[in-house]
């Protein structure tokens, strides 16, 4: 293995690897690989057929190349599509049976897997490489009728729900990476909130890529039934390696009448080293459908990691009076590249959307906001407000804004504004004068710049995210 043990390196403190024996699917993408994954997951036939349908579609579809960050061609035959810790082969019944090494890994990451840490009050589903390791707080959630489990378990136990909703927001023929995910997805979380239920705690999934030469393809499906509410958080880390790894996840959200889903992401995949070697390619498809009346979907993302981030969490506002929100901070440093934004598709009447995007680039990084606001003919009285601000540090980085704005009826209003600037020298001077050093000052100012978005994060993670913002920019000024 080409792994480098680099855990002493404080720049990326999640860069360690865990030596665990893995079960892997044969290398390469083929019908056999898909059958292998399906078999090891004990999937019913309809699921395998679904995967194969996606695989056939993949064979004829082409990789997109319109995005700003270009990347070397990925050899899809040189990847492992399934990798699982050996000890997970027979699923542990409780946390006591989980490999202590895994628990140790998650402890290092600060994930409160142990139910004793009830104080944190967060239910966690942890995904290690390709399989879900453990889900905490199951009992309490089950009492309320909430289903929160690995998607592989949901396929077996709740096939009706999965069949009904899987692929209904991101169809298998959507685009190359979504199709790839549909064919080979290995695990992920499944959430179902029954009608008129308010999920009593934050649900959370932690993703970690451990093994080398693997791609991670997880699939998340969240369904909020009528009148329910759920807040969901996703976090990601990966070891430091000098090769690029692919992460192509699909996330589907469905909100029915009066339901609300809040989806927050703190993405801190390994960004590659100072010279841009290694790092994760984070090519993720996230899409939510506000199917019901008065439903609401809110995306919040803090993107600090990954060599290349390429994703557009979107909302399809079908139900009348539905609301879509998108709050984003994307920080790129060194050679990182981000092309991210959102799509707000207004179809129902009186639909509202709000987009707040903050991009920060430093070093030799490139940061692009790309978004679409499309108000259809029948989406009367709709409203959109978009604000994109970019901050540049140094003259070797780039900040770009590419909004597409379409308005097709006269009762709707769209507002869009964007600014690009550097850190105000007066502000820096003021902070320095009060005794803050350059780095503290920058961290403070950047946190202020991002305040609108940080406020949207659940409390526990807002603190973490704030620190992350500071760390990501270390060494970029001065």
């Amino acid at each position: 293995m080409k792994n480098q043990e680099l855990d002493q390196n404080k720049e990326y403190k999640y860069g360690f690897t865990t030596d665990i024996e893995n079960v892997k699917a044969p290398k390469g993408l083929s019908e056999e690989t898909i059958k292998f994954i399906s078999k090891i997951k004990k999937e019913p036939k309809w699921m395998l057929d679904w995967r194969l349908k996606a695989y056939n579609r993949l064979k004829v579809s082409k990789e997109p190349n319109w995005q700003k960050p270009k990347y070397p061609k990925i050899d899809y035959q040189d990847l492992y599509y399934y990798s699982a810790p050996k000890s997970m082969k027979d699923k542990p019944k409780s946390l006591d049976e989980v490999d202590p090494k895994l628990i140790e890994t998650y402890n290092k990451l600060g994930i409160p897997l142990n139910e004793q840490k009830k104080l944190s009050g967060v239910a966690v589903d942890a995904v290690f490489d390709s399989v879900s390791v453990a889900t905490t707080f199951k009992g309490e959630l089950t009492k309320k009728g909430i289903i929160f489990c690995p998607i592989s378990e949901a396929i077996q136990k709740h096939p009706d729900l999965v069949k009904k909703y899987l692929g209904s927001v991101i169809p298998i023929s959507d685009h190359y990476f979504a199709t790839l995910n549909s064919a080979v997805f290995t695990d992920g979380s499944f959430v179902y909130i029954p009608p008129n239920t308010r999920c009593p705690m934050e649900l959370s999934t932690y993703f970690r890529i451990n093994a080398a030469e693997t791609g991670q393809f997880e699939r998340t499906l969240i369904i909020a039934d009528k009148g329910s509410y759920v807040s969901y958080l996703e976090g990601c880390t990966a070891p430091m390696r000098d090769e690029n790894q692919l992460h192509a996840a699909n996330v589907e959200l469905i909100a029915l009448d009066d339901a609300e889903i809040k989806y927050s992401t703190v993405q801190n995949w390994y960004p590659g080293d100072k010279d841009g070697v290694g790092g994760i390619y984070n090519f993720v498809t996230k899409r939510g459908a506000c199917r019901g009346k008065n439903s609401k979907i809110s995306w919040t993302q803090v993107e600090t990691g990954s060599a290349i981030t390429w994703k557009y969490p979107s909302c399809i506002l079908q139900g009348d009076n539905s609301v879509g929100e998108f709050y984003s901070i994307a920080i790129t440093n060194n050679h990182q590249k981000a092309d991210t934004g959102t799509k707000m598709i207004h179809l129902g009447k009186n639909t509202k959307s709000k987009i707040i995007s903050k991009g920060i680039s430093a070093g030799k990084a490139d940061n692009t906001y790309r978004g679409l606001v499309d108000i259809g003919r029948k989406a009367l009285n709709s409203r959109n407000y978009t604000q994109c601000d970019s901050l540049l540090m140094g003259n070797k980085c780039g900040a770009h804004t590419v909004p597409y704005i379409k308005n097709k009826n006269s009762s709707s209003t769209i507002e869009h504004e964007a600014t690009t600037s550097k850190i105000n020298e007066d502000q820096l001077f003021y902070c320095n004068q009060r005794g803050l050093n350059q780095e503290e000052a920058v961290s403070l100012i950047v946190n202020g710049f991002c305040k609108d978005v940080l406020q949207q994060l659940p409390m526990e993670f807002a603190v973490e995210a704030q620190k992350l913002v500071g760390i990501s920019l270390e060494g970029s000024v001065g």
Partner: protein
Amino acid sequence: MLNFKIDTNKIDKIGKFTKEEKDFRIKNLNYFNDIGFPNKRNEDWKFSDLKEIVSKNFNKLNLKFEKSEKPKIDFIKDFEHNYIVIINGELVSSDFKYEEKNKIELQTFINDDYSDKNEKNPMINLNHALSDKGYFLEVKENYKFKKILVIYYLFTGDLDENILNSKNKIKIGKNSELHCLEFVVNDSKRNFFNNVYEDIILDDSAILKNICLQNSKSLGYFHKYSKNKLSSQSNLTSFIFPTGLKFYKLDLEINLEGERSECNLQSASFLNNNEHQEVKTRVNHLFPNCKSYQKVKNVLTADSKGVYQGKIFVKDVAQKTDAYQLSKAILLSDGSEFDSKPELEIYADDVKCSHGSTSGSLDKDSVYYLMTRGLSKKESTKLLVNGFLNEVADSIKSESIKNFIKIKLDNQLLDEYKKH
């Protein structure tokens, strides 16, 4: 779908060319024939699917070889001016009675640049392949025009499913200044396509003020690609009132190639029945301390469609750039559509770049206010629309020209309100 392929032997009909020129034309024509009119798969034409528009409205497209009869010209009497007359793209006559003749050079355009630019815009390819008309105007160093220059673009009544290709070039010498009004008068009651390629060069400290105006509504389909080169401390101001054509796409490339150069672009249009109009800009900030300002205003009614695609590019050396883009649109009917894509691509950090884009209906409170003062709803709307669009015309300095333009714009609005 109809194919508008053009046979390469048509090039021989245009005129006799050197081998170099002929190869250049054939190469470009082949490229056009491969692609055809651009459709929405082409990112630059995403919101204006020209292939669809042309095949919907044209049965055929013929080149025009025979000369048309010279129409009677209604010269503008509102203010004193020099003029150039262009008929169907061809330079016909000129008069510079207020100026020093030796400071001005005007001739039929002769292309001598066959460098292989590998152009990937089918409309430019088409122009490179077939252009046979146009003018070249040069203002020598240290000369300021005393009166405005009006360029009359006349289109004759015999145009019918023709395609015209012309190339123009304007060069303003060091420390010189030119104000001009491009005035389009169209007599044709039929469909035709006019495809123009324009090259504008401003030497150091040169000033060009340019106003573009249509006399009245017509069935023209216009595409104009304008390439502007601004040297240090030069200044380009452009006011565009493009209303009145079935299809119009103005594609502006502005290269700020010298320090402290500035450009200011403003446009106002009122779009009606089935009209489709796009203003596309690309402002390249290549040197430090340059300024660019863009303001695009649209009012849309019936089933018209308006598009604004603007891009500001700031190169890494172009520090202290000040760039601004603003697009505002008012939609008066549910059949109308406005799309915009205001883009920023920035590689320098010490810059001030921003853009804003809004689209929506008229402010209901304002309409209500006017109605409480005794105006009818129609009158209130007209007053507000007028105020919205006139803001652009108001920033023209010369009183007589400003009034002339306002009257023309007002007439266009009036036509609309008479109908209801």
